[in-house]
């Protein structure tokens, strides 16, 4: 797709804004619509757009498969560790109240980290599925 200069220029212009919007949806999900699931998909869409326009090989250079796999598992692990941290700090699994100096602050930290875990897993799942589908050369 090297000759489609309009597509390449427009994609290059849009990808930073898509990533920025994904980060906004991720970290503003406490206050507005959105959250980890939506942000993860939007984040993945930016990488998928890049891989569509510039080729799957270049896409794999931006997000190597091994990094993606670590993030895939890392999101679930982050979520679970937040839950286990509640136990170690003297409460129950996934109780965020004990994570901060006050219960409300603890809830803030807990929800932020948990949503981050959701976003990581969702985005790397989407990227992984797309890479696998697009990378099959049958």
């Amino acid at each position, binding site marked *: 797709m090297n000759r489609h200069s309009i597509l390449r220029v427009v994609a290059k212009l849009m990808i930073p804004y898509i990533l920025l919007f994904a980060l906004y*949806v991720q970290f503003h*999900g*406490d*206050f*507005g*619509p*959105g*959250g*980890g*699931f*939506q942000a993860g*998909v*939007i984040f*993945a*869409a930016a990488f*998928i757009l890049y891989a*569509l326009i510039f080729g799957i090989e270049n896409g794999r250079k931006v997000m190597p*498969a*091994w990094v*993606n*796999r670590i993030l*895939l*598992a890392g*999101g*679930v692990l982050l*979520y*679970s560790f937040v*839950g286990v941290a509640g136990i170690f700090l003297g409460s129950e*699994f*996934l109780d*965020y109240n004990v994570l901060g100096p006050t*219960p*409300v602050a603890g*809830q*803030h930290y*807990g*929800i932020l980290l*948990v*949503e981050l*875990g*959701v976003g990581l*897993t*969702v985005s*790397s*799942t*989407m990227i*992984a*599925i*797309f*890479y*696998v*589908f*697009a*990378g*099959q050369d*049958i």
Partner: protein
Amino acid sequence: MNPVDIFIDIFLLLLMAAVAIAIVRSHLMFAVVMLSGIFSLLAAVLYVHLTAVDVAFTEAAVGAGVSTLLFLATLALTHVNVEEKHKPVRMVPLVIVVATGAMLIWGTLDMPHYGDPEAPANKHVAPRYIQDSPKETGLPNMVTSVLASYRGYDTLGEVVVIFTAGAGVLVILGRGRRRWRPGVKDEDGDNAEEERA
């Protein structure tokens, strides 16, 4: 509900029905994929109109965006673009489907109206979330506080489901197809060690 809202709902539902009929009648797989993307987008607009913005967000991103793309990738892989011609209408499945649909619609007549504050679903834990969640979590978006905090255990399960889906796709499709068969040589002689995913 005021008449404009009812008109918008009926208009969107009619559009969705028209798109669904077009999907059923189309022969071209490419057109079917594009139409299902449009269907998801219409559903997202409907969710916005029902003030379920978070759901609309997900529907637009996943239904209209990524899943359309995955369907297209599958089409590109399988090189199948034209469905076989319509078969003659078979009566027994048609009767079963129509009867099931009629019973489902009949069942909805007993359900409480949309947004009814007296509905059982709105009497159980919803009042507590609405009254206490801003104090307990300090978050204005109750969807997030229910999803991530009150129902954090359920959300952990959902994330594990997504992880399992991704891992499953990687295991089945992600590696060289002959990589994990010790002793079996590739046709070309090399053993397809390179990473695929």
